[in-house]
């Protein structure tokens, strides 16, 4: 059994020109080329996309949900970054 040697890839699909690639799932493959073809076969059987990205899962560096309190904390007390924080009188509120 040699399946254990296959690498995990993350798959991103652009559903239509002009949109971002969105993560849709992952798959095992030997290399990038094979991952692209597998992704086509697996994830775009119903014309879900016009472009595919594959990225080795181990190349993805992710923040940890358990750390999110301290990690995202700096923006919690900054409501003034939102437009709704500024109350303007009705006649000029459309900016």
């Amino acid at each position, binding site marked *: 059994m040699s399946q254990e040697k296959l690498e995990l890839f993350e798959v991103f699909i652009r559903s239509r020109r002009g949109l971002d690639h969105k993560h849709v799932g992952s798959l095992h493959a030997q290399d990038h080329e094979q991952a692209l073809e597998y992704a086509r076969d697996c994830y775009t059987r119903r014309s879900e996309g016009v472009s595919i990205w594959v990225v080795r899962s181990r190349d993805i560096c992710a923040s940890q949900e358990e750390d999110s309190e301290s990690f995202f904390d700096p923006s919690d007390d900054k409501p003034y970054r939102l437009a709704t924080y500024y109350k303007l009188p009705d*006649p*000029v509120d459309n900016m």
Partner: protein
Amino acid sequence: MKTSADEQELERRFQQRIEDEQKIEPKDWMPAAYRKNLIRQISQHAHSEVIGMQPEGNFLTRAPSLRRKAVLLSKIQDEAGHGLYLYSAAETLGTPRSELIAALQAGEAKYASIFNYPTQTWGDVGAIGWLVDGAAIVNQISLQRTSYGPYARGMVRICKEESFHQRQGYEIMIALAHGSAEQREMAQDSLNRFYWPALMMFGPHDRESAHSARSMQWKIKRETNDDLRQKFIDQTVPQIAFLGLEHPDSGIRWNEERQHYDHGEIDWNEFYAVINGNGHCNRQRMEHHIRAHEEGAWVRDAIAAHREKRGGRKQQVA
């Protein structure tokens, strides 16, 4: 130079894609001139975001309250982020950011000339948020429909973030305009000094704009300089009236037939003088950018040294 039949076919397909309102994406074939035009425009836009931090940064230590200081700091932080989005979009066209910044520092690349005006009073910080960001938003809303995908997507993100910038500026203006006689005078003075340069941000008249026609054909630009400027003029009139300030343009008149405001002529001599390096702060802005860049060299060196050291250690373990 003779273009091959293949290239003509590629160009035809490219233009067809544009006509069909489809976005061009980084790996698509595109005419060299389209690429060049985009790199020029996006990098100029990025430089503007970055240089634009300077006039506002000038008031960070003198903002009148802790709240105003926090808001201004946040806004400036946003501008840095916008610069980053835009440099990244430009890099998808194959030119590294370091080259773009080198071109700025060598004076080969431009940035919005509005940032060559000094911020002299707190009122100027209000006027910049209200008028300068307001004008930028009008332009950027239009650019959300630009034909190059990464640029369009960057604009969507930027417009979303930018909405607070104009509102905080106008809030400053309201406080001043409804304040003491001195404060009202400060608000009027800032409006007077920033109104005309804000109109110039949309660029020369369409008939004199060097890049306009081609950019419109490629749908890099979606609306002409004059149309965008008119939108801004129209939306600003009631905002000035609400503040109870005097409109800086004595020629401003509602035109029932056009359903737009007629307006006085912009001083284009001033526009070209500032663009060509003779504004109040051109030299200061560039010197500051270069100094900050050079003073940051140790950080870049430290990062490189750390990477090398860590790489070396990993090899030892292996």
